């Protein structure tokens, strides 16, 4: 069966943002169907569809809904449209071309979770999209899809569009809720989880735009269709973004589980590299998920298992929720691939990635606040031709000491900072070492003395910082050879 675009079916259709055009292609039929069901049946339906969240973590939406307390009076639905992961623009395309699909999804999810008020938390930079969505929402209100007694079902739902002010961390669900409440977007400590106590101290569901946009299609096309798309554990269609020096950068819809190579080289998607260059590296799921080696590296010998410590081409990674983990990636993420060509300097990539997280760390947890800024400084020095081999170990060590997974932070932002930086340094270590070997051997010392004289001139520190291998702290008893001679 040929794959049929559903999420992006209206892209390129004239007037696709209007309710009329949306209805012509079967719009709001899913919602009408949903409103005839019982809310709990809907939750079960979404559970059996195994609709996994499209925002990055891939948590099953139906399971998330079932965490809501049974005896709740008020429920809020927050729609996460704070799409800030570099280089992701799936939600933007969706809202640009088919805002009603999102609104229908909100209606269905709202009904399933017995939500009374839905908030669409929109990235502040989305000005055009805000107006598009607001117009669509006004239209939907006028047509009776929002407000009181929707479609005669007796169900009431209010919906508001709220604009953020431009912070990456506000895409984290509790950061989003704090920001929505008018506070500083600092993620909250969990528990309590939002499903129990979220926005305005009430049970809250936070779902991604694309997750909600899938709902109408599950209802109209049925589970059988849904299960026929994708790989066993990752069902359904997904919007993929590809950017970088490819021939056809953009947003494409495909079933989950296409390979990274296909996304770059298929004439349906990326259309190959510009000027016939080769791929050095690709971040397949937005920056935070980590990096894959490109096809400048040799192919893995046929039949051998995946070994991320070896310099092999990793473009065969399948873009679904599970396969990226085999390549030491954090997950599928936002499925937005950015391609680094062979002509790029890997040190520039490191600086670029490190800068983003140093700028966007919210500053609450120490490891993330200080670690990201420190790594950015190290990356800048490496790029300036004053790197040391110990810096690479140091970056790996810092990345291993931050994040939610080892329990060292409140939210997942530092995991997302650690993964690309660590995989970059580990997978491209030989290139970094080549650069360091080629630079003036005295450069690190000169630069360090200029920027931080204390590292060399203070008697207590004299030169020790330079020789400390990564992974160890300086402790006098462990390093008698470094003791000053009196």
């Amino acid at each position, binding site marked *: 069966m040929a794959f049929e675009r559903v999420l992006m079916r209206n892209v390129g259709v004239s007037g696709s943002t209007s309710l009329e055009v949306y209805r012509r292609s079967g719009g709001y039929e899913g919602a009408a169907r949903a409103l005839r069901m019982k809310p709990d049946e809907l939750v079960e339906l979404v559970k059996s569809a195994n609709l996994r969240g499209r925002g990055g973590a891939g948590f099953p939406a139906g399971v998330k809904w079932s965490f809501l307390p049974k005896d709740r009076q008020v429920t809020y639905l927050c729609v996460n449209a704070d799409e800030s992961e570099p280089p992701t623009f799936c939600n933007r395309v969706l809202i640009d071309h088919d805002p009603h699909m999102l609104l229908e999804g909100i209606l269905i999810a709202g009904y399933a979770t017995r939500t009374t008020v839905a908030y669409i938390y929109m990235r502040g930079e989305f000005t055009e999209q805000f107006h598009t969505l607001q117009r669509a929402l006004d239209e939907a209100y006028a047509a009776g899809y929002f407000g009181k007694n929707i479609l005669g079902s007796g169900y009431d739902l209010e919906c508001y569009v709220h604009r953020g002010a431009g*912070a990456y*961390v506000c895409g984290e669900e509790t950061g989003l809720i704090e920001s929505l409440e008018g506070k*500083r977007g600092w993620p909250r*400590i969990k528990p309590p989880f939002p499903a129990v106590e979220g926005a305005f101290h009430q049970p809250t569901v936070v779902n991604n735009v694309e997750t909600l946009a899938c709902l109408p299609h599950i209802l109209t096309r049925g589970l059988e269709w849904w299960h026929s798309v994708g790989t066993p554990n990752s069902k359904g269609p997904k919007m993929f973004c590809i950017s970088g020096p490819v021939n056809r950068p953009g947003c494409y819809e495909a079933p989950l589980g296409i390979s990274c190579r296909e996304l770059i080289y298929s004439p349906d998607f990326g259309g190959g590299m510009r000027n016939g260059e080769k791929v050095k590296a690709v971040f397949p799921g937005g920056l935070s998920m980590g990096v894959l080696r490109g096809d400048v590296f040799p192919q893995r010998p046929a039949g051998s298992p995946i070994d991320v410590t070896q310099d092999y081409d990793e473009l065969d990674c399948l873009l679904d929720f599970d396969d990226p983990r085999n390549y030491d990636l954090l997950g599928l993420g936002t499925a937005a691939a950015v391609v680094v060509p062979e002509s790029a300097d890997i040190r520039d990539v490191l600086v670029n990635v490190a800068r983003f997280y*140093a*700028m*966007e*760390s*919210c*500053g*609450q*947890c*120490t*490891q993330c*606040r*200080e*670690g*990201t*800024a*420190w790594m950015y*400084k*190290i990356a800048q*020095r490496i790029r300036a031709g004053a790197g040391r081999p110990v810096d690479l170990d*140091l970056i790996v060590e810092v990345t291993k*000491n931050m994040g939610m*997974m*080892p*329990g*060292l*932070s*409140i939210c997942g932002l530092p995991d997302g900072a650690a993964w690309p930086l660590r995989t970059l340094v580990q997978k491209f270590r030989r290139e970094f070492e080549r650069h360091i070997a080629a630079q003036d051997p005295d450069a690190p010392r000169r630069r*360090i003395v200029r*920027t*931080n004289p204390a*590292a060399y001139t203070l008697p*207590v*520190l004299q030169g*020790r*910082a*330079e020789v*400390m291998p990564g992974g160890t*702290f*300086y*402790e*006098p008893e462990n390093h008698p050879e470094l003791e000053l001679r009196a």
Partner: protein
Amino acid sequence: MPKIIIDGREIECRPGIPVLQAALEAGFDIPHYCYHPGLKIVASCRLCLMEMKMPHPKTQEPVWAPKLVPSCQTPVKDGLEVRFNSDAVRQNQKHVMEYYLLNHPLDCPVCDKAGECYLQDYTEQFGPAASRMVEEKTKNPKKDIGPHTLLYQDRCVLCSRCVRFTEEISGTGELTVVNRGNRGEIDVFPGRPLDNPLQGNVVDLCPVGALLDKDFLFKQRVWLLRSTKSVSPADSRGATIWIDHNDGRIHRIRPRFNEKVNEWWISDEARFGWKYVHAENRLRAPSGRGRGPADPARPLAGRVPLAWEAVPARVRVILGEAAARGGGAGVAAVLSPMMSCEEAWLLASLVRGMAPAATLVPGFVPVVGQDQTFPKGFVIKAEKCPNLRGIETILAHVGGPQATWNEFLGRAAEGAFDAAYVVGGYPDASWVTPAVAAALARIDGCILHDLFPSAAAATAELLLPAASWAEREGTFMNCDGLVQAFERAIPPLEGVKADGQVLHELGGRPGLFRAEAVRAEAAAAVPALGAVFVPRDLPPHAH
């Protein structure tokens, strides 16, 4: 009482508290910055992380979980097993301590906090010996954030305690964090300085040298200071405080934890209200009335200096002569609410003993504005004296003729009293209004026991210098009837005797005045005076 196991040691703890609090109370030294028992938990410093046993997902057998868990955020639960003495926990502490010092200016030699700084202590105890950062440090600015407080942002660890304090306790919300990431700074809003009546507490709350008190700035190294337990005389609630002093001078006042009254906080009135102790113009010697006319503008001019040895006889003559006339109805004693219970007891017994018909008067009660209540229940009382309830309790027990302050003034102005023992002891002389001065001037044998020269001092037959509360010992009974003891922090000014000692000698008692002995005597008659409340001690490593 839940029982939990920390590092293999079983401890019993109060229900509902976080593991960190339980560990601190059991004497474990767990590093922490953002946690404070009086503030909301944010779990952001990530220094108090611990390992915890959790049921294995498959076998349900309790095993050490691979993740570290913030101990400040985990409530105690019966049977919980945690550990801090593991490699993972120690490694994390080392990393975090290294991070804190990455951009810290390491200017301890000029920092007021040095010596009581938890960045110093924890680095020494838990941190690595040297930093591995060779890059240029990020420099954050110094800021003047209010009339009493300076912010050295480069020393800040962004624990956000001060921000939470202004949000939750004072409810004024002046402080906030601006900017993101490691460019984050504490700041005030433009034109809205940190000036709420509780603002000084943010300096105590700051675990490092970021927030500093302008009043104490560069005055003393903290290791030279000695701390004495005291009770604030600033208002009738009687906040418990530490008086930090050195070489006979007070240098600052800090809150002393008290679960019944002020918890961890004090008002700025209590914090900065000690300056009068070292005022230049305090009375320094007893004196008698001179021959010439009194000059209210220069109260001490022409007065005859008196040796302390001559004072008891002189007082007995003044009061005794008046008592002999008309059965003692012409004698009065004014018990100031600035006196301790013990001093009031001595004075009341003395006067009643000499003149049973004497009128006893509770002294002037300074009232400023209205009671101020803050969101979490901290109260600043309008009554700016510490012991009105104590005086009232004693007078109620002693009985006999009594009058209010205003009645006393009225009758004194009519010449009803031949002699009076009037105690002042207020932080300034403003209680002696012209009306008060005129009334007291009508009393021939006026014995005034006060801190400062005033118009009344000019006309007093006998003027005795008083000592401030920091130079005395005793108990105050606060507005809720709670009796709390304060100790002597510094010796009285040269030439001055502590009030208790003076009254002790006037009563002809041998030896030295000891508040405890007098308290025992008073408590035999009025048991309430003996029920001294002692606040719970804070766990040794809490801050």
